[in-house]
């Protein structure tokens, strides 16, 4: 599959990167949350436009620049945190936000590790987490954006990566 990014001299398709993103997410959920993951065909309904919930962002820099994110409802965030920390969370608090930042960090870090042999060394930032209502994201026109929608026993969420070649 040839994509915009492949045409710019980066030898990888969005389909391959989407597979890497799902593989990295699956590893986090299996190893750290003890939960199987399934890929969903469509984004969770509440995330097709703006949504209420949690958005965790991790920056990427190096031969490519951009970021990776994980978006979910408050309920799914509490479920993920409960599984990660083996403590029940009913509401989004600092611990839940920290846990969601760490989950995004591991997902984007794992994706980065899978991508590096093809595109060269990349670095990731520390995570930022946003919690609120009517969260809307917009992708830059340059580069590519790819996402994977996932389901686990505690809910659904979306992971997304936006990448563009670094300027010379």
């Amino acid at each position, binding site marked *: 599959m040839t994509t915009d990014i492949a045409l710019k001299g980066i030898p990888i398709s969005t389909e391959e990167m989407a597979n890497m993103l799902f593989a990295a997410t699956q590893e986090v959920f299996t*190893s750290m949350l003890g939960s199987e993951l399934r890929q969903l065909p469509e984004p969770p309904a509440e995330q097709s436009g703006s949504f209420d919930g949690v958005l965790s962002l991790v920056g990427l820099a190096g031969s490519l620049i951009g970021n990776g994110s994980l978006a979910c409802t408050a309920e799914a965030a509490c479920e993920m945190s409960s599984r990660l920390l083996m403590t029940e969370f009913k509401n989004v608090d600092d611990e839940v936000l920290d846990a969601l*930042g760490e989950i995004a960090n591991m997902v984007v870090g794992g994706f*980065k590790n899978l991508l590096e042999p093809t595109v060269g060394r990349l670095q990731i930032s520390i995570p930022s987490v946003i919690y609120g209502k009517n969260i809307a994201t917009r992708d830059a026109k340059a580069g590519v954006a790819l996402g994977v929608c996932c389901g686990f026993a505690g809910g659904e969420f979306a992971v997304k990566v936006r990448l563009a070649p670094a300027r010379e």
Partner: protein
Amino acid sequence: MRTEPPNLLIVDDSTAIRKILLRVLSQTGLQLGRVLEAGDGQEALKQMEGNDISLILSDINMPNMDGLELLRALRGSPDWRDVPVVMITTEGGQARVEEAVQLGATSYVRKPFNADLLRDKLASLLTK
């Protein structure tokens, strides 16, 4: 020969990971002394002062002072150059692993990790 239970230091900017590592350590079945926590390398160096730390578990990507800078500082210190340091990080690239090993990391564990394997590794390091 050491007779007192070992003191440990966990260095990670994520409280979630610190909590998980505390749980893994409690599952080793070993008698441990104090387990101190730090959110970055600078805090870790402060915690090292006056505490007899036997093992450090450290992340790499942290604000203020990252795990590799911490490692460099520890290995440059006459008091702390021999303290074992296990890097626990999402950074799985070969270059980063080699950099950490060259700086004197005792062991390298990539996140996400299998808690059982990490528990066994830590138990092995603590009983050496």
